[in-house]
């Protein structure tokens, strides 16, 4: 090889921000070729994919509505991922949160009271935590791997919701269709921006991200989590309670996923339906890593991923791009973003002329 690759001692600050831009440029170039090859106008396709959704206040509000669950779940998962706790069942915890919030909302159907909404959110957090407690218990007590348990429980959770909306929670006036009654006003999140779907939950999401940033960067617990992930042996030596941290990570991520479920049903959905989430729990895993497990990075990556979904729909509507193409494009975007991280952590040097430089 005429060049060699070496690790940077410290992540390059400059490239930390430049590399995503490089990835975007590469994605745009590839997208240009891809769309043109599929017989679509590449400029129009790219415009409707990446720019048009950002041009109106309504578009931006939709972006935030779509990104909110991704950010909320991603922030929780990232804490666990830092400690090498692999909760990949956020989808199920979200579903259980939605069930709990919906259950409370329906129990107090028609009731007017400011307390209904907080109660729903509290129930959702508790349900998400309780559902994540199963993998936590099995992990700490029997060393059962949480990847398996959390993933399997996701399917169970979805079926549980299905059993409820096809059974006891079915709308009595709904011709036996599988959906609950529409929630009444006290169980719906207030709208922050008139004429849009931007609900109060999105504000909470931003606050949670900020709080997670404080937790991870400025507290002892955050430090312990990071050490557990980077050097488990050192963590043990230092006397950190490994089990306690596993519990903390799973309960935190489960609780936030549950809250995301509450925000979905009390926000844009407004009732219980058989499918609450189009895979937010899984997509949030990408969001977490794309944001480099940093709460503020996750806010940005959540918005970007949300844009790629909304842009995909937009491109289907405006230029007739089939969904398969938008999927390929989305995959490429992610590949470039993940691949370009390389530049942040490594440098490429020409091998032929070793440069002596004091460092």
């Amino acid at each position, binding site marked *: 090889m005429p060049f060699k690759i070496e690790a940077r001692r410290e992540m390059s600050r400059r490239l930390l921000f430049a590399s995503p831009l490089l990835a975007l440029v590469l994605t745009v170039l590839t997208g240009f070729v891809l769309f043109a090859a599929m017989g679509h106008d590449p400029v129009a396709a790219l415009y409707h994919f990446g720019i048009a959704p950002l041009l109106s206040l309504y578009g931006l509000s*939709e972006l935030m*509505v*779509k990104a909110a669950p991704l950010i909320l779940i991603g922030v929780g998962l990232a804490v666990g991922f830092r400690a090498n706790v692999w909760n990949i069942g956020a989808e199920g915890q979200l579903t259980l949160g939605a069930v709990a919030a919906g259950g409370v909302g329906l129990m107090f159907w028609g009731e007017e009271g400011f307390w209904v909404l907080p109660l729903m959110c509290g129930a959702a957090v508790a349900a998400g935590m309780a559902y994540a407690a199963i993998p936590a218990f099995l992990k700490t007590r029997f060393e059962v791997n949480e990847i398996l348990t959390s993933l399997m429980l996701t399917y169970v959770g979805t*079926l549980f919701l*299905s059993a409820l909306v*096809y059974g006891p929670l079915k709308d009595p006036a*709904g*011709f*036996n*269709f*599988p*959906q609950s009654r*529409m929630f009444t006003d006290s169980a719906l999140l207030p709208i922050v921006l008139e004429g849009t*779907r931007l609900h109060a939950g999105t504000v909470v999401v931003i606050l949670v991200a900020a709080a997670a940033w404080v937790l991870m960067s400025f507290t002892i617990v955050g430090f312990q989590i990071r050490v557990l992930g980077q050097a488990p042996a050192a963590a043990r030596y230092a006397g950190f309670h490994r089990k306690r941290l596993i519990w903390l990570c799973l309960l935190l991520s489960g609780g936030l996923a549950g809250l995301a479920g509450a925000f*979905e049903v009390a*926000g*844009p*959905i*407004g*009732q219980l*339906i*058989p*499918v*609450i*989430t*189009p895979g937010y729990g899984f997509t949030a895993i990408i969001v977490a890593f794309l944001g480099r497990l940093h709460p503020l990075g996750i806010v940005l990556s959540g918005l970007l991923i949300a844009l790629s*979904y*909304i842009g995909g*729909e*937009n491109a*289907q*509507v*405006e230029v*007739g791009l*089939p*969904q*398969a193409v938008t999927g390929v494009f989305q995959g490429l975007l992610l590949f470039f973003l993940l691949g370009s991280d390389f530049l942040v952590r490594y440098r490429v040097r020409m091998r032929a002329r070793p440069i002596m430089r004091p460092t």
Partner: protein
Amino acid sequence: MKSTATRRDFVLGSAAAAGALSLAGRHAFAADPLKVGFVYVGPVGDYGWTHGHDLGRKAMVTHFGDKVKTTFVESVTEGPDAERVIRQLASSGHGLVFATSFGFMNPTLRVAKQFPKVKFEHATGYQTSPNVSVYNARFHEGRVVCGTIAGRVSKSGVAGYIGSFPIPEVVMGINAFALAARKIRPDFKVKVVWANSWYDPGKEADGAKALVDQGVDIMCQHTDSPAPLQVAETRGIHGFGQASDMKPFAPNAQLTAILDVWDGYYIQRAQDIMDGTWKSHSIWWGLEEGMVKMAPYGPAVPEAVAREADAVREAIIAGTRHPFTGPIKDQKGALRVADGETLSEKEIAAMDWYVEGVEA
């Protein structure tokens, strides 16, 4: 007598008509094309429900030529995403939007309120508004024809039924099938296995195999893939295609298939908009209107049975036979519909009980 019109005949016919129409049209109108949007719950390549609606869309394009411009969005999740997509269609100049899944009901109604000038068509729902129509097909009429054939062809007297989810549409299909089969053979039984999915070929096949192992020799399905029928073919039993003619997948096993034919309705509603005669309505069309059709009978249907099935089909069209005429007993043997009485559309639309002979 095996003269049931196929979807292909219809498409070819309307294509010919379209040629004439669009020629005339180009001279008659100079207006912009009508933009029609479609919201699909699955991918167009599912070869099931969404595929069927997309064929309807294509028929509309063939029929109107450049008088319409269609847009579709695939695999839209029922929920917040659906509302955004429908709004996107409504706000980008589409005059007519078809929302082709039950779960799009509330999103459609919400968007419709904000776009009173745009007309919406919601499939399989129950709520209308001044600019939201509801349309659905009486698939269960086709099930009566299938049940009649099954009652004659089955040796074991037990049919298997792969269900998706126990919504009224599926339940009424199972019941209509069972009642028709029991009319021929009073001891006929229907065993139901729920896939808990509209679309999971592997699981549908597994369910079908489990049913064959339990001795059924007729396979019915209310899921989207041809997998159950493929199992029927390899296991040497018979069955019925769902949504489209699945003969390529089961040349020997398929007795007939219930075809969802949206072409006519889609063309008519676009025409209504062009003529300014579109009105909100709730329609439930069946064999008579051609929204439900039967595929040509397979080789395993004897001539006499084919004639009998045709007679049933014609009787339904003529209104002399109804899928749900009493006496009908439920699973527990209690009389639900008295002799000579017929269930109302409303009662059928909300059906959540099974008739005698159904094991579900």
